[in-house]
């Protein structure tokens, strides 16, 4: 049996969900991302060895500047695909990759970090990524997000953990278009997606 056929997306029954995306309103596109792999990594950023081990294993350094993320190709020998690393806290990062890759990544990291103090937790399935884009994406978000999302303030490459209405989110600007990635806990995903649909329609 294939693994994928066993899976059911957190928003599979979300109204308007076609397995690919949903339109919020003219000028705002809301996409529900398909499956992604998520890993939570914690360790001491003051420990050079820890940082170097990660860099060597992943082919990209951990973002150490608060509220930023990096995105790069995964080293060929691990898997084909991209990896985004989001700063979550001074000793905490979220790794997001295409589905399935997280297991290879986790394996590599565990191997390389053996004996070093860290924690690596697979959170695949625990979160959902919503992608909001279009000219009015900022307006739609501003209805429930208290961050200043002005292009001069919140720039591509930045991320922030904050709230969207009554849900906690991780928001990142991945493109100047703009394209916002909103990562939300699985059980809040339906609420957040519905909320963005409504806020997009309210502009």
């Amino acid at each position, binding site marked *: 049996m294939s693994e994928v056929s066993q899976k059911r997306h*957190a928003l*599979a*029954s979300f109204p308007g969900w076609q397995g690919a995306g949903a339109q919020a309103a003219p000028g705002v596109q809301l996409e529900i991302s398909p499956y992604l792999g998520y890993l*939570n990594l914690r360790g001491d950023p003051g420990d050079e060895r820890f940082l170097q081990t990660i860099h060597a294993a992943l082919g990209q350094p951990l973002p150490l500047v608060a509220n930023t993320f990096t995105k790069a190709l995964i080293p060929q020998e691990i898997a084909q695909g991209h990896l985004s690393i989001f700063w979550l806290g001074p000793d905490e990062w979220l790794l997001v990759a295409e589905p399935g890759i997280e297991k290879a990544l986790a394996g590599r990291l565990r191997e390389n970090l053996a004996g070093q103090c860290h924690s690596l937790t697979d959170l*695949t399935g625990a*979160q959902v990524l919503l992608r909001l884009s279009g000219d009015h994406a900022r*307006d739609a978000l501003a209805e429930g997000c*208290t961050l200043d999302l002005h292009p001069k303030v919140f720039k591509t490459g930045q991320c922030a953990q904050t709230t969207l209405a009554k849900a906690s989110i991780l928001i990142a600007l991945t493109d100047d278009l703009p394209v916002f990635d909103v990562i939300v806990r699985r*059980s809040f995903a339906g*609420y957040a997606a519905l909320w963005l649909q409504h806020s997009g329609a309210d502009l």
Partner: protein
Amino acid sequence: MRAKASSPDKGDSGGMGKQQPNRLPRGGRIDRSQPLTFHFNNRACQGYAGDTLASALLANGIDVIGRSFKYHRPRGIMGSGMEEPNAIIQVGVGADTVPNLRATEVALYDGLTASTVRGWPGLDFDLLAINDFCHRLLSAGFYYKTFMRPGALWKWYERCLRKASGLGVSPQLPDPDRYTHRNAHCDVLVVGAGPAGLMAALAAAKSGARVIIADEQSEFGGSLLYSAARVAGNSADEWLGKALTALADCPEVVLLPCSTVFGYYDYNFLTILERCRDRPAEPRQGLSPSPPEREGSKRQGEIRQRLWRVRAKRVILATGAIERPLVFPNNDRPGVMLASAVSHYIHRYGVCPGRRGLIFANNDSACQAALDLAAAGAAVAAVVDCRAAGPGAIADAVEQAGIDVFRGHVITGVTGRKRVRSVQVTPVSADGKTLNGASKTIACDLVAMSGGWSPAVHLHSQAGGGIAWSEAHACFIPDKPGQDNVSVGAGNGSFALDACLAEGQQVGLDAARQCGFEPVPFSTPKTVSATVNPLQPLWRTPALQSPERSPKQFLDYQNDTTVTDVRLAVREGFQNVEHVKRYTALGFGTDQGKLGNINGMAALAECLDKPIAEVGTTTFRPPYTPVAFGACAGMDVGQLYEPVRKTPLHDWHEAAGAEFEVVGQWLRPWYFPRAGEDRLPLPLTKKAGARGAETGGEGGDRRKPFATLSLAAQAPGEASAREDLPEAVARECLAARNSLAIMDASTLGKIEVQGLDAVAFLERIYTHNVAGMKIGRCAYGIMLGEDGMLMDDGVMARLGERHFYLTTTTGGAAGVLHWLEQWLQTEWPELKVYLTSVTERWATIALVGPNSRKLLQGLNGDIAFDQADFPFMSVRSGVLAGFAVQVFRVSFSGELAFEINVESDEALALWRKLMEAGGQYDITPYGTETMHVLRAEKGFVIVGQDTDGSVSPVDLGMNWLLTEDKDYLGKRSLARPDCRRADRKQWVGLLSEDGTTVLPEGTQLVEANTPGGRPPRLPLAALLEGSRLVGKPGRARGRARPIPMVGHVTSSYYSACLGHPIALALVSAGRARKGDHIHAALSDGRYVKVKIVSPIFYDPKGERQHV
């Protein structure tokens, strides 16, 4: 938008002149090509696009708009904006109805229906106007003095009083309108778009700063909209147009007309109510243009109001000033208006509110109304000025226009009840205190009054700024600001136009600089400054008789507070302005005393013989003007009211017809009714069995098939609080005990603990021995607060040497993680431990029942499930039916049970597989109700239901979990004297002696050994007055005496498995009292005798979970 939606005119535009007798043939900023029809008190009226309801009513010659609050006096329109105290109306019908709007702020739209909020049986003939003639009985404090006794009758009094006095009618249907919120950030927020605000915004915005400028009017311009002044060589109107264009061209500007800044909170956080529907239909700058028109009626899909939540670096308050009424006898008659309102209606709406106007003022600005009236073709009867003489360019212009000017005169009387007919004018001394001459009567139908101007310091004060008394202008002006804000223009006491423009420009440039922008200087527009005759304070016109004998002199129109009321309050000992406010209701109306407060304070100052500055003001609180609840709620209504968290298995539960209950924010299956299943009325009992209590505590295996249960004959009045039981719950319980049941336990909080010091950390958190746990073993762990009370509980497992997995209660998940992090980060930063929530990573499926192992053994996988390989309280990882799983052999039911963690996305597939494979065992899904019953039968505690933050593990009988030879959070507190009291409430089981009554949870328990050995009986009177049961010994014969209360019921169910009700309770020293009888006091007055037993009702030796 409203204009576009207007229906084609009915062709009576020819009769418009008749319809709108007060509409001027030309002028005004209205669109005469768009006539609108509206209804006021069922009368069809006409107006134009651009009108407010007030201007349209005036145009139609409607004088009486409402009745006053207390005396039911006829009242007309007095102002032209948010200060309006009288024209409070109800707009719309049915679900759309909105009460208590100010007609001056309601943008007219086609088909609008409005009605008076008061007046019974009708506006023109109000029966309660009799109050006006009985005013001596209705003085300040009248309610408090009259309706005090007997207290029990207040509810009846209140109903009558509300009918007599109330304002509008609340809508009874859900609000069909849509509201939204907008968070915004800016460098400079400018409040008010009059001359000062516009200049400030322009100066700041030219530098590139992010500027938001909001004004409550539908058009920007403030006083420029009706000013006769020339600005920079242009008319005020032309200059305004150019300024707005320049402003709109700036890169980072948001223009918000129809938007009231109503709250100023900490750290320059301000709230703005934007009335979107009233907005002219052009796109706002800096924001996305309005979406295309939607299908259907004008209201479909349209946002009614948007609440802005703005964080500004710098705030410029250009809020303008509010004109003050003058206080003279009958100063509330329809036709008495603010002078600025008269000018406003003429210039802005092309409406002349009277045919023969008279101006009464203590300052120059009101003279403009005389000139405007004359220009509009109305007669000007006179200008009555309390000042004896003085210079004044505008006053000169009035005299040059041939208008009579009565210097050194005041109005001492007004005739006319539903409309002013004439006024009495009397010479006054130079200080304005005494009358000194013969009165003269002048006919007029309009009195335009002006007592000077009060800067709108509301927001400045809300921000924490002080205010100071200005002798020059006789008003309070902003003093030191409380935050990063500055006041400017008339709102700062600078009333001259040239000063407003210059000040505005300066603060705008300053603000840009303060926000880090390079200001772009530009020349200040020049205006002609007029010679001004200084204002002379006139807080109350001297009367021919004492105030008590004169006709009423109103201070607060909306609440009918008069000079006499304030004087009475002072005579009765009230001196503080806040107390006088509350005693007289001065400033308590929906207008919050915007017109009346200052005159009220002056009246108080006069009585106390103090300067006004010493009397001070009452506190300014948000909101500046009323805000609809809908706007506060925004999108947080209906489906979006609260996040509804659903488990990965939710869709299956829904398809299976589950009833759900909300647990925290989670939606959990409550039980799964099958077709044909009903709710069974209680009490239930066995058909042929003996009634009465069983020895349930020992009745481990007294399982009865559900079919043998039936209804007991129910004696009248014997209904218990839990009146029915879902048949499904009984079936689910029996399935779990007899064969196999399955539950979605995904909502459990789950935390992974990893790191070098994981053991050391958890030893301090949990009360049990963590270090001694072998890898692969589970333990039931409890967490105590530092006060020793049970905080949370759950199973925890050791996955590796330095790797643990904890579960928390569903509701405690977030709180426990924060609490753990707090200890780690603030108290023990030296511990190398990392916590990660995996609550949503795993779905948890509980398989419960004697057949659970057989089911799992029948599936493919690499986990050995037999007793030897997989003992109770252990954990295994592996593959089950093709899924990567973690399996915990734990039990919250006392049965053989397994909890399976599977990745959330795969949970549904595994659940389906288990349901399919479990068919042979009649696998039964169950919900939280059955879970509760099963755990209660076993005496397992539920934190938050059986505990309330004041229950220690010792109280619960959990001493076996407390390790002596280590320290843990809360341990020391358990040794505190209070925790060792012998009479602490302890957790026990209860059985109803009748064997049938399911006690309501929360039921109070009382001693049985009252005199006579019977449960205490309450006299009927005491039952009726339930709240007065306790105390007052010996006051009246038959009164109940205090009853010794010994505890309360925490959990209570009907146990289908045992065949009788069971309850858990906290009872004082209860563990030593097993076998004792006490009474449960039901809320209907009955008592049920109950027996104290062990809290473990089923399988007390715990054998079933170990098989």
